[in-house]
């Protein structure tokens, strides 16, 4: 453990920062200094002060508390969407790569369609048409995101499939699902996981973006994108409503991007820019 930290100082540092975010998300109810949910019109739109560090919003709720609660959703959405799209992509890619032929052609043509269209536009269309909700945001971004992983996993499966240990497993009579589960997936996982980690930050931005457009989380959920949308009309008089949620997104996304960059360097030391 100590050796690992000394060898990978940057990675350990970013991991610690990331754990701080996780800590904030888990202990939000205890960390929030004010009331994030109950509206109190007598306190509406107060500027940052000793009592409300980040000010209050149009319903008199404490902005800092709402930002702290917002960590929960942002983290949950970023991680769960990446897990879902990586899982779908891995399964489809592994099946296509392992079986080849018609199955491969149909699956990969499907992935090609998804990849030859700007994903953001499709995600906005899906989430918007189905109606703004957290479930639909997850659905929209997963539908758009799996294709990249299917392609990656397929090409790696093709490579692994030609290895001798797979041929040996086939000769020993191992079933197809065993081979995919025991031999193919473990071999391609490191690269898939690091690629997925690199996407967490971008997904968090997209989640906030959908909420900002009104196609994601709905009021009164404390969500950073939604808070920006609500604060937008008070830009002139209450700029703190815009400043703090945006900075939170920036900081959290930056930490995840730094962490995943250094994760890649740890897993694959050759690939250093």
């Amino acid at each position, binding site marked *: 453990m100590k050796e690992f930290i000394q060898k990978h100082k940057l990675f350990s540092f970013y991991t610690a920062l990331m754990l701080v975010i996780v800590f904030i998300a888990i202990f939000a109810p205890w960390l929030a200094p004010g009331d994030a949910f109950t509206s109190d019109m007598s306190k509406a739109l107060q500027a940052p002060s000793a009592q409300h560090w980040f000010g209050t919003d149009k319903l008199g709720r404490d902005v800092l508390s709402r930002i702290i609660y917002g960590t929960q959703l942002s983290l949950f959405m970023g991680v769960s969407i990446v897990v879902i799209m990586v899982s779908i992509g891995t399964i489809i890619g592994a099946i296509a790569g392992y079986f080849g032929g018609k199955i491969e052609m149909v699956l990969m*043509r*499907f992935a*090609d*369609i998804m990849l*030859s*269209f*700007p*994903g*953001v*536009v*499709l995600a*906005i*269309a*899906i989430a*918007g*048409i*189905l*109606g703004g909700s957290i479930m639909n945001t997850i659905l929209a971004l997963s539908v758009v995101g799996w294709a990249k992983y299917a392609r990656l996993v397929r090409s790696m499966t093709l490579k692994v499939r030609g290895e001798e240990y797979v041929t040996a497993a086939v000769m020993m009579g191992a079933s197809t699902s065993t081979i995919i589960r025991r031999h193919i997936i473990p071999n391609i996982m490191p690269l898939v996981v690091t690629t997925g980690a690199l996407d967490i*930050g971008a997904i968090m*931005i997209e989640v*906030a*973006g959908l909420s*900002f*457009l*009104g*196609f994601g989380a709905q009021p009164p959920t404390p969500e950073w*994108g939604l808070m*920006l949308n609500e604060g*937008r009309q008070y*830009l*002139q008089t209450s*700029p703190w409503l*815009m*400043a703090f*949620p*945006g900075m939170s*997104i*920036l900081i959290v*996304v*930056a930490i995840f*991007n*730094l962490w995943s960059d250094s994760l890649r360097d740890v897993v694959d030391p050759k690939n250093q*820019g």
Partner: protein
Amino acid sequence: MGKRFAKHLGQFIVTLFGITFLTFCLTYLAPGDPVTMLLETADTIVSQELIDETRAQLGLDKPFIVQYANWVVNAAHGDLGMSYSAKKPVVDRMLEALPGTVMLAGTALVFTLLYALPAGIISALNRNKWIDYLLRTASFVGVSMPSFWLGLVLIYIFGLKLGLVPIASSRVTPIGVILPAATLAVVVGSKYMRQVRLVILEEMQKDYVIGARARGVSEMKILFGHILPNAVLPLITILGVLIGWLLGGVAVVEMVFSWPGLGNMAVYAITMRDYPLIEGFVLWVALAYMCVNALVDASYVLLDPRLKRERA
């Protein structure tokens, strides 16, 4: 070359059908009824009779697959139907919004190139020096920043505090385009700058560069005579992807700035459940994106002598 073209055209058509069909399925599955939505906005009491009549008029009473087939046939004739919310043909509504988007995306592209190309090249040439760290940090912040937030910050600083630019123009003006274009350029350009840097770095490590340096060729000559010409192709490929980001990012940024373009129109169309208009927007994005990629492909043939020989 002909084969290559045919293959691309095939893929192009499959994608067009795939993406429009998917959107059609979505509008079919969606909760909420566009007909009641349409009539309710008219602020009158709506009878079932009127609903049924309008539904038949819009062709929404027909089976799903027939509706899609009708749409495809009409679209092939250049008729994308009537917009429910604008009460005029979808094509007309889109042509109104098109200049705004073209101007915004074009300006953003120019800004992006002006920022990302020099920054990426300077960063690569000064690898691991302070200017490299500075530019990389800047691009890193740009990548981690949501475009809509940057837009709000720029409106606050340059529009509200300094009063240099109009905050929200509902008309297309040369001054008004600067802030939204800069917003897009920061976000997209930061991604591109990192790619430019990597491409140049990779090219710099090739043998011919070391050879040229050993022969005493000046660094400037190596950069402009050797590295850049060789880096053009990968840079153009990445540019194609980047324009996809631009087309996507335009929707959010246009909304922030109330810029009268197609993206803003699409967001409004989605809120209004104006399905023909949404379908038209999706078709436009697909066509625009594919044209860009076709251009990227064509530029290979023009720029890469090896492919030119293949054609002959």
